[in-house]
């Protein structure tokens, strides 16, 4: 960050510190942020590559969580559930 942009950030009443940005990312990603806050955040992001990376990491975390594969059932559990299903079928 240049001295000038640093000064601008410091003096602008709308400036957001990075430390606050990381607390706002979920509201932002969820689309639950008031328009004025969203504009402040987006303004910050255009000038802050670290927060841009942080936001990208959060999005990536969400995406990767969606790709977590289910663990295999234990053979015992599989047998028990098959039996459970068959018992239910005979319940009538």
């Amino acid at each position, binding site marked *: 960050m240049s001295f000038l942009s640093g000064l601008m950030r410091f003096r602008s009443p709308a400036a957001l*510190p990075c430390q606050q940005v*990381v607390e706002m990312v979920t509201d932002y990603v969820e689309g639950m942020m008031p328009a004025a806050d969203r504009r402040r955040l987006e303004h910050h992001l255009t000038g802050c590559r670290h927060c841009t990376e942080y936001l990208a990491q959060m999005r990536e975390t969400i995406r990767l969580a969606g790709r977590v594969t289910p663990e295999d059932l234990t053979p015992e*559990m599989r047998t028990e559930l098959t039996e459970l299903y068959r018992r239910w079928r005979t319940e009538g």
Partner: protein
Amino acid sequence: MDTDATLLARLRDGDEQAFTDLVGRYHSSMLRLALSFVSSQAVAEEVVQDTWLAVLRGLGRFEERSSLRTWVFTILVNRARSTGVREARTVPVADAGPVVDASRFGPNGAWAVPPEHWAEEAENRIDAVKLSGLLRGGLDGLPGRQREVVLLRDVEGLSSAEVCKVLSISEVNQRVLLHRGRSKLRQVLESELGGGPR
């Protein structure tokens, strides 16, 4: 892979394989979810089995006003709660404190120890099996309520409205828990991929 709607139709036709497929799809998340309400693996397994039986018995009455998975998870959470082990749990207040350690910021609140670049590279740098294990470990390490929300939202892909319904929590609460849980999962990935204090 069959959609839930297709599985539901097959299940109603008495197709045992449809049950097996459904179990394969949701069992591990159900177990993980149950474990955040009860104290032991054995009790959690019982809760999940009870849930499957309730699902089978309720098939005829299920009116599809919610999705199949939302219905299944709702039954599970209700059963897990009513086992009583942790039913005295108080209002789900998120743990306090910042989601990124304050030591990583300077006095003006700007990054002092910024994140290193790894977004979009995670899958190239960690193989899929290890990545899944890492994230599962991360999930298991989350406080109960955060784990429940992140599991349902991000792993199972329920909407925020569905999660609120399944867990009986408010939208705002859901978002706070999601925020804290997701932030911690990001840290798990960061500790593997680089960045942050060593």
